[in-house]
């Protein structure tokens, strides 16, 4: 949250935090140009919300302690000494992103909310765009499998190089994923080598790979191909 001095067209600068009364905070700002000062005063609900963020407005003056927020806000907290620990020492080797980078927007509060996952979209951060007609068709699928179908359709679309899901893409997906694949006796026999509780997952994954290859049958050759692909995935 920032304040802008509209007369000077400048962000007002944070000065200090005061506690003018129980359950209230006064956060003072100063316009760097016209030197106007004012204080934003919070009500008890807003004060609690700011405290719940777990940050010290204006920055830290002491080293962080383990469970600092929890201990400060818990009513029936056990009493035990808590030495401060060096967070920065623990972070050695991890480059600190600069303020205002991609980890959040320009507002620290909106960044916090974003970092907590509020507003997660059904499509997820890397979800593709869908046409209205395609979304209508998706809505007809029972809700408990809809997210899975959505993810699979999008994965399928990506394999074809598309970034937009249309009705035509859904038709292609349906044709590509529901067409029966034949299994040769040898391939079926080899599938039996997989523990029974993960066999359905294995079958599905191999059929997906076979469809990507444009095959209509899972043969011993396809099993060799899948085995090599999995070995490569494992770095073998």
């Amino acid at each position, binding site marked *: 949250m920032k304040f*802008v001095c*509209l007369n000077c*067209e400048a*962000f007002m600068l*944070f000065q200090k935090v005061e506690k003018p009364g129980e359950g209230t905070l006064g*956060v003072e700002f100063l316009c760097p140009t016209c030197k106007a000062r004012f204080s934003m005063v919070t009500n*008890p609900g807003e*004060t609690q*919300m700011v405290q*719940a*963020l*777990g940050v*010290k*407005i204006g*920055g*830290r003056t002491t080293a962080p302690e383990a*469970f*600092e*927020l*929890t201990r*400060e806000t*818990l*009513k*029936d*907290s*056990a009493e035990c*000494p808590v*030495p401060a*620990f060096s*967070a*920065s020492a*623990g*972070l050695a080797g991890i480059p*600190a*992103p600069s*303020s205002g980078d991609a*980890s959040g927007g320009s507002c*620290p509060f909106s*960044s*916090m909310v974003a*970092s*907590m*996952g509020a507003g997660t979209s059904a499509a*997820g951060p890397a979800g593709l765009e869908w046409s209205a007609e395609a979304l209508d068709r998706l809505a007809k699928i029972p809700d*408990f*499998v*809809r*997210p*899975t179908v959505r993810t699979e359709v999008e994965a399928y679309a990506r394999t074809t190089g598309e970034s937009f899901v249309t009705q035509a893409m859904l038709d292609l997906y349906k044709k590509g994923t529901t067409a029966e694949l034949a299994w040769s006796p040898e391939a079926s026999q080899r599938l039996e*080598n*997989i523990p029974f509780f*993960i066999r*359905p*997952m294995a079958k*599905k994954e*191999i059929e997906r790979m076979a469809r990507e290859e444009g095959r209509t049958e899972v043969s011993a050759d396809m*099993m060799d191909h899948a085995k090599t692909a*999995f070995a490569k995935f*494992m770095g*073998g």
Partner: protein
Amino acid sequence: MSPSNDLKTILGKLQFPDDAQVMRQIVDHTLQVKMRMGRIKRKIVVMSGKGGVGKSMTTVNLALAFARRGQAVGVLDVDLNGPCVPKMLGMSGRRFDSTPNGATPPVGPLGIRVASMDFLLRDEHAPVRWKGSMELSPVWLGMLEMNVIREFLADIAWGELDLLLADLPPGAAADKPPALANFLPELDGAVVVTTPSEVTTDVVRKSVVYARDVGIPVIGLVENMSGYHCPQCGHESDLFVGDVEAVARDLDVPMLGKIPFDRELSLSCDRGEPIIDSGHPMVKRFDEVAQRIVDCLNFKEILAKNL
């Protein structure tokens, strides 16, 4: 200076200063979590849409099963308001050991390291109450709990672990799974606990969909209270009518195992004296579930070897 410009124009010219140092602290929090979690090989959450299905009992016994396999295991009790992992492991009343490196978790049976809100409360019976008037806004309470979870992830000096099991509170659409998924993008997956009751499986379906929706892979289902294990004759009979295997097929998730209700196991949890004898039939069941979890996580490796 012209005051006639609109706000959008003005903001377009300005660079945001983080002079209140809020952004920097939030970034530091995230990095601290990354640093701690980077030393843990596998992270699994145990969840369910329904309460009372045995999540904590499953978590505790799975932790023991993995510890029996020689793994360094940690258990994070994320049930902030009803923590019961310490009691089940006979660790009630223990405290974190505060060190300059963070809070060291108490060590329980088979070397399992445990973190729980229970260790921060004044006594075993003290409820979790927060300072301030909570009735003012449930929004701040949710935000506070997320930051408390963040502190559990960031401030505990687990050391090197092979596995961290997090016992989540009940709730299909609660805020905890997305919060954890956000803090732990490298989460290996969720073990979902259910009972065969149709009422429960209906809600559990929702939690599986919800977990996938927030990006948590579902490792599989554990059917708890799958039957009643008679302590006298050893016979097992049904407690509920339901078909969890059909639910697993519908949801396309593996069945990890069935755990019947066993009085001895239940009493052992209540007394805080976990059964660790690897010859015990219930222990064998959990060992099998643990093996299946390992197999599911190493799914592609198994395919590469066995196809």
